[in-house]
């Protein structure tokens, strides 16, 4: 699946997007953040406080307990500050 990062999550991870195939045991958005945090220092920094990070699956907002099965694109970003 494609994982995308925005704003300071993107800056901390150091890339805007990547293709990753998480293990089958990774069932939810929260699981995925936890798995990503273990991928290296920059990820650990980006996901050090997962409670503040928002997520979207296939371009719609989801909560941390949302299932990721079948997702083509998952995005992580800080709370939005548009308008």
């Amino acid at each position: 699946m494609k994982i995308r990062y925005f704003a300071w999550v993107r800056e901390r991870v150091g890339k805007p997007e990547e293709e990753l195939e998480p293990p089958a045991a990774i069932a939810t958005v929260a699981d995925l953040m936890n798995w990503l945090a273990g991928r290296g220092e920059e990820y650990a920094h980006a996901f050090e406080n997962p409670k503040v990070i928002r997520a979207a699956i296939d371009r719609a907002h989801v909560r941390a307990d949302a299932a990721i099965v079948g997702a083509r694109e998952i995005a992580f970003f800080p709370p939005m500050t548009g308008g």
Partner: protein
Amino acid sequence: MSATVRLQREPFDAATEAAKLTRGRTDIGAIVTFTGICRGDENGRSLSALTLEHYPDMAEAEIARHVEAAERRWPLLGVTVIHRFGRLVPGEDIVLVVAASSHRQDAFAAAEFLMDYLKTRAPFWKQVEYADGKGDRETKWVDAKQSDDALADRWSKPPGRREAAE
């Protein structure tokens, strides 16, 4: 109802956009236009620029969903939302919401509803550049405001009794 959602780097003209909604029609009795503008200060510090990052495809879809929600809630005759992205300097326009209806209450309420949701749900992120940064260009991602969440939350109450802000 005519609904237009545009994301663009370029400036927009609020009067032109409002005129597009009313041209050739006599059923519209009220049109509300709101323009959000880049201020020259943030928490008492002066800014040299504001950069808006966005999630292109999702932003368009998310704004369109909220325009549809506004249509279900109020008898609207036209809506236009334009949100700019990229680097803006103080004084430049950031966002435009135009709501047209037969009566003013519906147009005011829909414009306010859309702005409250754009602030908290549309995938845009603001980064400020300080004018007084020493040496290297000093930038900071703007923190989301809890007061903006509270403003968006009030619309989740069932519609009917109170539509506009108090």
